């Protein structure tokens, strides 16, 4: 069947009114498939990085959520080794009133505010929590050194 009008409209709006720090381009041969780049939010350990993701709109979209995955390696408690993201709106909290734009904004927000209490990568979450507590005890800004290191290693040009 033809591509739903909603998808064409969303793509048009992503181009005409881009979101700062987010770039999403759909493939010419399959417009349901997107190459996404999210720049690491300022004042986060991901600052200065450019993270690549893939996004796919299944046939049942917008009734079913888009499938999103990080392609760039990232040290984050809610993102695992395979790039899978633990985010409620991509699972049971999906609503058809959400869209590509809001999904990508949520992922960007997840980079600013990781949630180590609902981890996907257990070791990272553990490390992250200890790091955070250590920083609070010392009265300094949390260093999250591993995340910074990985950002420089994998997400910088």
């Amino acid at each position, binding site marked *: *069947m033809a591509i739903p*009008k*909603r998808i064409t409209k*969303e793509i048009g709006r992503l181009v005409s009114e881009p979101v700062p720090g987010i770039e999403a381009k759909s493939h010419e041969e399959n417009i349901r498939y997107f190459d996404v780049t999210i720049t690491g939010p300022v004042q986060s350990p991901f600052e200065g990085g450019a993270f690549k993701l893939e996004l796919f709109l299944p*046939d049942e979209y917008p*009734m079913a959520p888009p499938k999103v995955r990080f392609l760039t390696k990232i040290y984050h408690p809610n993102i695992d080794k395979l790039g899978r993201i633990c985010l409620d709106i991509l699972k049971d909290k999906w609503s*058809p*009133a959400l869209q590509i734009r809001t999904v990508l904004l949520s992922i960007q927000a997840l980079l600013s505010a990781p949630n180590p209490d609902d981890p996907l990568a257990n070791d990272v979450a553990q490390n992250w929590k200890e790091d955070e507590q250590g920083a609070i005890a010392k009265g300094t800004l949390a260093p999250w050194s591993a995340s910074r290191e990985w950002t420089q290693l994998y997400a910088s040009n």
Partner: protein
Amino acid sequence: MEAPGVSATHSAGDATGSDLLARWSTRLHSELQCAICHNLVYRPTITPCGHTFCRSCLERGHDHSQVCPSCRQPLPSPVALFTYGRHHLLTALTRRWLSHEYHERILHVQTEEVHAHRIDYAQHPNGALLPIFVCTLVFPGMPCYLHIFEPRYRLLLRRCWVGSRRFGMICGRPSQPEPAPDQLPYREYGTVLIIEKMRFLPDGRMMVLSRGERRFRVVHAEPQLDGYNMATVAWIDDLDIIDLQQRQQQYTETLHHIMRQRLLHYRRFADQALCERIAKVYGPIPEGAQALSYWAASIVPLDRYIRYEALTLPSIRQRLLLTSSWLDTLDQHRNWWWLDSACSIM
């Protein structure tokens, strides 16, 4: 009497007036967008929490999750929602002030959603584009009871219900061996079912009584529509109905007569409760060779993957011969098998 604002617009000249009107309607259009399909809201329906969506969008949303797509507050049952949630004022408003967009939207719904769910044999004498329900084996004239709970099939059934009430039913493939990647995920032959009765349960599920109407063969599998299969199909009719050669007709009649006697024989000796159950579901042994051949193929207690072959045969004759061979095997395999009331189908 005109409102002061309106008369001021008029006095500013026609060009400015129409310009303002155009800007106003563009603005109105974007305000009256459905958050689900991003089109002009069509058959607007308002939720108890005050959010408005197209009726069909909200129905689809409700199939997946019983909360408001905008604010996640719980939604009432579909019956309550779609009976009391109609937004007449907004319908009137869009029809009056966005009449061009409104009619474009109707046309879009007609071509995208309704068209493929309105099967008209006179308009499509050889075949048609058909929505496909992959589930079970049904022969023409025979009933099929369905409990619909999967979101995609709720959508399919709703669309068919407002269309011609017809859809294609195809038996799935057995899970072993796994179908090859280039193979259809379902069988090649299927049956058009017509919905006779439909009951909507309070939570949106449906109980459906449908009946086989005619057979078809899948010519080409089309891309899915909103999660369910679509296929271009060709109708198939029995050759001995079309071809009227006397001698072959006689042969079919003889086979028909033998099968009828055989079924009557089984019925005479089989368990009474079993016969009643069959009669209740499939009706009494029908008149006519074609109807009898489908009836017999339906009640034989064999796996549907075996009985599927009867759906693919091009004539009543061959179907009767195949069914007899099944009955022969059953007779040899176990004497008096048809006496056994525990048998699942017969």
